[in-house]
């Protein structure tokens, strides 16, 4: 993304006045949109620390007056929030670990190992990626019930512990790794799994980080699946819990500071990961459009 620096600028200097003006307009547009995209988060943050009357009277103000943590006290003491956080941590950790391991295992096999049916499995994985998530709500509920795991951690985790898109990312990555390295390992007598685990996987770090982050973000934010997987409040994850704060039986009153605070807390982990690993998010998204 830093290609710009190397490019010659001479043509741009030819018309100084116009460049300056368009420069200014460019910044104005950027700053305006930056406000549009970021100010709502400022509002969210500020209003979570406001009292309810203050939030209703001055929703735009970036500074609470008075500053109060009453909303957070209520979040932690009056709702199942601590439980939701714990559940989200458990589910996200297991799902992320499972996805990274199982997806790369399968991705490697589809890229490198020769076995009959490989083409069929690859085709199936690609086909599965086209299945839209929301039309699976009723079907998933049926199968979870039929398997007798409805309303359990298993139901929250197992169905989403592999994802076709992840398998495909890993397959694409392994296809691009030179074969020579693993052949050397194989000739030394290492088994298939050993070769995969100690030779190929370490080389896959960039892809693994991308996959880890996408999996973390995906399962931390996952909402519709929890609707059909569990119903006991003690099994709620954060998005489900927050959704029920808003639309469930507790949704009757406004209580905006409380709701905004809960939503804010649910956003923080992903926001932190995003800021730290930005590059990998960008790669994940950009991969859709960039050429090899």
């Amino acid at each position, binding site marked *: 993304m830093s290609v710009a620096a190397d490019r010659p600028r001479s043509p741009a200097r030819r018309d100084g006045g116009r460049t300056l003006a368009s420069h200014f307009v460019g910044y104005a547009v950027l700053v305006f949109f930056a406000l549009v995209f970021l100010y709502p988060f400022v509002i969210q943050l500020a*209003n979570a620390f406001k009292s309810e009357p203050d939030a209703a009277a001055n929703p735009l103000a970036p500074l609470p007056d008075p500053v109060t943590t009453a909303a957070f006290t209520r979040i932690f003491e009056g709702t199942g929030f601590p439980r939701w956080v714990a559940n989200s941590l458990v589910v996200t950790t297991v799902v992320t670990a499972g996805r990274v391991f199982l997806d790369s295992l399968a991705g490697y096999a589809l890229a490198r190992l020769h*076995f009959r049916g490989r083409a069929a499995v690859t085709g199936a994985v690609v086909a599965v990626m086209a299945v839209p998530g929301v039309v699976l709500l009723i079907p998933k509920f049926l199968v979870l019930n039929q398997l007798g795991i409805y309303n359990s951690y298993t139901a929250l985790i197992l169905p989403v512990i592999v994802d076709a*898109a992840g398998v495909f990312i890993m397959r694409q990555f392994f296809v691009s790794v030179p074969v020579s390295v693993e052949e050397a390992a194989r000739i030394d007598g290492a088994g298939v799994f050993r070769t995969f685990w100690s030779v190929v996987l370490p080389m896959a770090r960039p892809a693994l980080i991308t996959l880890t982050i996408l999996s973390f973000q995906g399962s931390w934010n996952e909402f519709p699946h929890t609707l059909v997987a569990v119903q006991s409040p003690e099994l709620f994850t954060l998005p489900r819990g*927050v*959704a029920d704060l808003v639309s469930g039986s507790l949704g009757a009153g406004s209580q905006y500071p409380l709701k905004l605070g809960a939503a804010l807390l649910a956003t923080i982990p992903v926001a932190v990961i995003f800021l730290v690993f930005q590059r990998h998010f960008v790669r994940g998204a950009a991969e859709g459009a960039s050429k090899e």
Partner: protein
Amino acid sequence: MFGSRRRGGIRGNEAVAGWLFVAPVVVILGLFLLLPILMALWVSLSGWNGQGSPFRDDVPFVGADNYTRLFTQDGLARENFMTSIRNNAYYVLLVVPAQTVLALGLALVVNRRVLRGRSFFRTAFYFPSVTSSVAISVMFLFLFANTGAVNSLLSVFGLDGPQWFADPRGLLHLTLSGLGLVDPAHPPAALTDSGLLGLSWWEWLSGPSVAMSTIIILVVWTTSGTFMLMFLAALQDVPVQLEEASLIDGAGPWQRLRYVTLPLLKPTMFLVITLGLISTWQVFDQIYVMSQGNPAKTTLTPAYLSYRTAFKDFEYGSGAAISFVLFLLIVVLTLGQRWVMRDRDRVPRTRLLPTRTRRS
């Protein structure tokens, strides 16, 4: 002899290992994707009432009844379904162009090489895309509350904001009556007396409701960042020489955009539009959190209707049937996308995105 045997061993090992490696993925996808779809297909053909197993002998087989009720039988089921199709169609019609244009515009501005702080702006625009749809919905509930941020911003300009989430009036109806063409209390009989599939022409022509437009704004706001990144990636590939050549030719910025940049972005543009089409037909989370189909059914979408029909009304067959119709629609869109992009290797990789944008 020895050598070939050994080779065979390795190949054999590979075959076993290959299947073992893909086994977890195959079993889980089979169990939680393929099997459920088959089960739901049965349910959509049955009259299961949600009590006990749908696979008992006494669950009646009703054939295509659940489907015909959505299309040919005059009644509430068809009306609700068609209303949801109408709402979602208007939603798609507004969201897809808006997010594409906004994403392209942002990408073009961010890509200007003379600007400083590009990575900051890129981050800022992309950030909403990575956050939870539920959390964002909560935020927008507050922003668009009657005394919320948007209305207080409007009041700064002396405008009275609407009661966003309580307002079922269609934007098209409002425009028509604003132009003095029709009186919404007494719509023209030509439009109300006849119709298509259970809704009168007047109802079909409502446009998205005021309440729906808040969800439209939300989704454009969250997804534009992702698509902007895709445009940015493509813009990086625009050959520098080409731009310079056009500069030397004295082409103005608009001409450059029109004749140089846009044609080069065509594949990405197409990708963004089809991805947008696919994901906008799946809108669910925001509806569940923000409006539950209200006010006056104007935010009902097929995805939410199917959920509600099954889990609230116990009409699992009908709910599953709605799911399958939606499924079919999305599969057709996806196949269309893949067909048009067929000579590009990048097609399957695009599915990286829907994992994150599918709830848009």
